[in-house]
């Protein structure tokens, strides 16, 4: 079971809340302070992407974020319920423009550039971005 779970309406204004919660739980789980910026950015990218997928495909379901303390790892899953056609590669990013597609690509590029352990999966019923970071074995006391 996730340590903390979050569901929010697919609206841009809630992405910041998800970032703040994720960073707070990551800190408690013992993720290094120097890495918290990456956690914040990566979860924000994943949530922004989910919000835009829900909005563009007219899905009214909330975006799901599961934050889990594991032994010496901290993992985040961001799930959407938008139907995905084909998996796209996050590697091929040009200068980009303002089109939703390229924002999506840039978001994935940022995530894959930041996070060593990341898995992106998707099918017709939705997609999940799963990321994890090392954490101290004993949770921080503060």
């Amino acid at each position, binding site marked *: 079971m996730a340590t903390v779970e979050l569901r929010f309406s697919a609206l*841009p*204004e809630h*992405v*910041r809340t998800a*970032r703040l919660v994720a960073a707070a739980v990551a800190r408690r789980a013992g993720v290094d302070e120097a890495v918290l*910026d990456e956690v*914040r*950015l990566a979860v*924000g*990218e994943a949530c*922004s992407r989910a*919000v*835009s997928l829900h909005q563009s495909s007219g899905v009214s379901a909330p975006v799901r974020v599961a934050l889990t303390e594991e032994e010496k790892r901290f993992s985040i899953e961001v799930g959407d319920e938008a139907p995905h056609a084909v998996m796209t590669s996050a590697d091929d*990013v040009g*200068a*980009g*423009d*303002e089109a939703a597609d*390229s*924002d999506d690509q*840039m*978001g994935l*590029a*940022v995530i894959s*550039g*930041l996070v060593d352990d990341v898995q992106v999966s998707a099918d017709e019923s939705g997609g999940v971005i799963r990321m994890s970071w090392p954490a101290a074995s004993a949770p921080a006391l503060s």
Partner: protein
Amino acid sequence: MDLSLSTRTVGDRTVVEVGGEIDVYTAPKLREQLVELVNDGSYHLVVDMEGVDFLDSTGLGVLVGGLKRVRAHEGSLRLVCNQERILKIFRITGLTKVFPIHTSVDDAVAATD
């Protein structure tokens, strides 16, 4: 934390001072500001990001969009940024090759090439 924007003119450059968080929620405000400047004939922009606490790919998309707009008028878009955590995002997306990034507004305003 919201986004703050203020603009001032220095010579033939327009300096846009950005503060706060540029993300999926606030980026449209920055986009509107850049579009408005270009529509009003300001084609040489300096975006001062020293007060930016957070930048994501939506923000990058807006900056790239701004660059495309000024380039259509043979203009320029320069960034001012010294914050490592912000610079890192430009590096991992390869955008350091796309944007001239300066260490101070004075430097950006004086730059010509």
